[in-house]
């Protein structure tokens, strides 16, 4: 009986094992920095986002209506007939409804607004992308995740599924859950988006990253959310 159980456990695929946020692998001091809003540098962006929201967005939205939004993005965008991520949605709102120049990807304004909106979902579970219109992007994201790339010829799977928890030089390889974005990274000395993180991994294997805003990143995010469905949103997280 024991033995069958042990065998069964061995046979379980990696995905059935415990999912861990990158938070769990961090040093205690870095965890404390994320937990305490007074210490968490990401809260500066959230505060700036709140100011911008109250100034530019409250003609259409309330703060309360922002709760849960980040948990169900990327979502289908009727206007373009394509999936759109949260930053893309905020940008599109500025362009379509305010008739203003949309803030650029990774600009202070867009990071602050995205951090503020995502922060309203802190603690909520990421929902599984079940909208059938997202299915092709989900499949594309899964394929991108499994594809070897770059001069080092490595795929996301090889690091984040096959070798998660081991050390790549000094860094513990996390399971790549997108729970904390935008987040404050000590190495960046600033706030950055999931797309910035993904570009980091792509250039790390010496591959050509996609341009900011590319559909490939949205597809990867949909796949990562499917993989992380049910895990709690941490925005703004802190990472080494």
């Amino acid at each position, binding site marked *: 009986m024991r033995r069958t159980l042990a065998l069964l456990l061995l046979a379980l695929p990696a995905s059935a094992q415990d999912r861990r946020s990158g938070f769990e692998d961090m040093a205690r001091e870095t965890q404390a920095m994320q937990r305490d809003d007074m210490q968490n540098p990401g809260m500066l962006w959230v505060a700036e986002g709140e100011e911008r929201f109250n100034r530019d967005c409250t003609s259409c939205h309330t703060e309360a209506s922002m709760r849960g939004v980040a948990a169900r993005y990327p979502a289908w965008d009727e206007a373009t007939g394509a999936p759109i991520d949260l930053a893309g949605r905020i940008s599109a709102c500025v362009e379509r409804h305010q008739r203003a120049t949309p803030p650029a990807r990774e600009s202070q304004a867009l990071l602050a607004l995205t951090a503020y909106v995502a922060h309203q979902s802190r603690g909520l579970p990421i929902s599984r992308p079940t909208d059938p219109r997202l299915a092709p992007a989900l499949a594309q994201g899964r394929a991108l995740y499994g594809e070897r*790339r*770059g*001069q*080092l010829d490595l795929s996301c799977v*090889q690091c984040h599924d*096959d070798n998660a928890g081991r050390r*790549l030089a000094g860094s513990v390889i996390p399971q790549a859950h997108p729970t904390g974005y935008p987040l404050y990274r000590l190495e960046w000395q600033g706030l950055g988006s999931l797309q910035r993180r993904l570009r980091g991994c792509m250039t790390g294997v*010496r*591959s050509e990253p996609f341009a900011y805003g590319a559909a490939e990143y949205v597809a990867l995010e949909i796949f990562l959310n499917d993989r992380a469905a049910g895990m709690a949103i941490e925005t703004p997280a802190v990472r080494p």
Partner: protein
Amino acid sequence: MAILALLLLIPSARADEAPLTATPGDATRGRAIVADRTRGLCLLCHSGPIPEERFQGNLAPPLDGAGLRWTAAELRLRLVDGKRLNPDSIMPSYYRTEGLHRVAPAQRGRPILAAQEIEDVIAYLLTLREEPPR
């Protein structure tokens, strides 16, 4: 029988793995390449007897003792294109430029290490004749 067939599929590591250059490898230069995370990259995944480099990886077997386990030709095969032995390996092929996807423009068409650098790394690995500390 199946095992025999598999063995036959493994390319011979003898005849076809002659040195890549006429100049013999230099172990001192090889050590510097292995230690350099932006050139050899070896310590991202492996550990080795290079105590001044902290934060060595543990995705791969230690390099200690490599010179006991392998001949120069076997090491060359593993560095040039170890995927000929194990197509699923995460170890990059250091002297192969075809069959890669979306290589960054700065590295496109170039191998990770030059021929002489590979010979230097092999010369260094052959000096590693002690098993890893337990």
